[in-house]
């Protein structure tokens, strides 16, 4: 696994410079006025960033309020017995709930769990696997749809949340299988 990871790491290191140099170089060969075209395209960057602000504000402030009110802790406590019944340890529930809501919050949870249970704990492994294998669904939805002004997101949210839930269950079972 380590050699595989080194290989992928190596590829990631070279991909960026290859693209950043390769695209303009290829354009130059194809006689494209690269500088003018680049600037023309880059102009859009600012607009897109500004476009997503309202969407991101809407999502982040509601999640922030929900956490600050203590409702999140209540939700986690309420879910303990239910998910305990299907064999999921109560220790990893906070991660399962917070992962789709906030990225920085989930990172804080992994850190907190390391302090609480120790680095080698199976709960930390489960939480880290959840962190590494999914994205912050609400953030991605706000940013991606925000950039093109889509307000009716149809089934994007349920699909994202179901995928998160599957990742949550699998993280528990795969880690149990490998380390339990």
């Amino acid at each position, binding site marked *: 696994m380590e050699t595989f990871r080194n290989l992928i790491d190596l590829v990631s290191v070279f991909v960026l410079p290859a693209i950043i140099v390769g695209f303009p170089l290829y*354009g130059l060969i194809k006689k494209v006025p690269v500088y003018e075209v680049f600037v023309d395209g880059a102009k859009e960057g600012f607009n897109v960033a500004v476009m997503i602000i309202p969407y991101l504000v809407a999502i982040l*402030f509601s999640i922030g309020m929900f956490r600050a009110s203590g409702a999140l802790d209540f939700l986690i406590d309420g879910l303990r017995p239910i998910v305990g019944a299907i064999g999921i340890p109560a220790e990893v529930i906070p991660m399962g709930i917070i992962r789709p809501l906030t990225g920085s919050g989930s990172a804080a949870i992994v850190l907190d769990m390391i302090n609480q249970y120790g680095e080698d704990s199976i709960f930390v492994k489960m939480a880290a696997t959840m962190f590494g294998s999914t994205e912050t669904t609400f953030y991605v939805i706000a940013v991606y749809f925000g950039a093109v002004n889509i307000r009716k997101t149809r089934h994007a949210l349920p699909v994202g949340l179901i995928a998160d839930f599957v990742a949550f269950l699998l993280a528990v079972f795969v880690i149990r299988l490998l380390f339990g």
Partner: protein
Amino acid sequence: MLNYIWAGLIIFSLVFALAADVRDLSADTYRNGATLPVEITFQSGYDASQRRVPVTVGLSETTFRDFYGVTHAVDTVFSGTLIQTSDGRQLRFAEDAALPEPLATIRSVTSRRDNDLRGPVVGFAPPAVGSRAVTAGVTFDRVRFVKLNSISAAALDFAETAVTLALGLIGALALWMGLLKIAEESGMLHSIVRFTQPVVLKLFPEIPRDHPALGMIVLNLSANMLGLGNAATPLGLKAMEELQSLNPTEDTATNSMVMLLALNTASVQLVPPVILVAIMGLQINQLMIAIIIVTFCSGVTAVIMAKLFGRFKRYRETDPANASKVLEG
């Protein structure tokens, strides 16, 4: 669905904050107006004329627990300062002291700026000759509606964070959008599209053949897999723009957009996020195989769910592609 979840988050925040505050009020969690007994020790002797006297503040664990009705373990010695003025005496705990609850909450509400818990001293008598310690009482400012205040503060805080996050993307967005424009104009994107579309078109059947959106999607997914988060977002947003150009409506997501979102929220990645590597250190090597299995399965689930949900009646009815057909027909 997003409408309900969003409104739910806000309404439940208010309900829970109110409930917590009413509970605090009725249980008198913060003992507003009552006097907490403390032992004040003057390490370097007491001088009545001195304005700021360094002291240590001792709490008796049993008294403290009875007083606030808590059961957790409590540190009992803190450093502080006794301020003496003609108006009376005030006790200040040292800034950022590790105070037990509920004192920490009282401090965060009453001394937001300096972060030092303070309150007037009552029943103070100078220590007897030869003694360095006296017992006295201290009262703190009233603490009410903690949660209500904190949800408003959180709302404002996070609104600011959102803007910071969005503006922080400008640089990466501009860089990638510039590079992509070059790729488009030079025909490179077209080659990527032709090379990969047999596979991508299966997931995105609504995109016309040879459309640049296919190339953007490929680039976005590859960047995701390689863990290039900074590049993946701009590429994904560019892909969304291309998809939007195919969208007959202005504000409703197409099936292709939902599929792209599904692939991004499930984020199939072969390289774990930088922050996780930083947190877990060498341990990450052990977890790689687990992460790859989980991320792959959740990615497959997302694709299946996106296809499946797309067939549900309520999502078929809202499909922009169908809406345009109805209009044309």
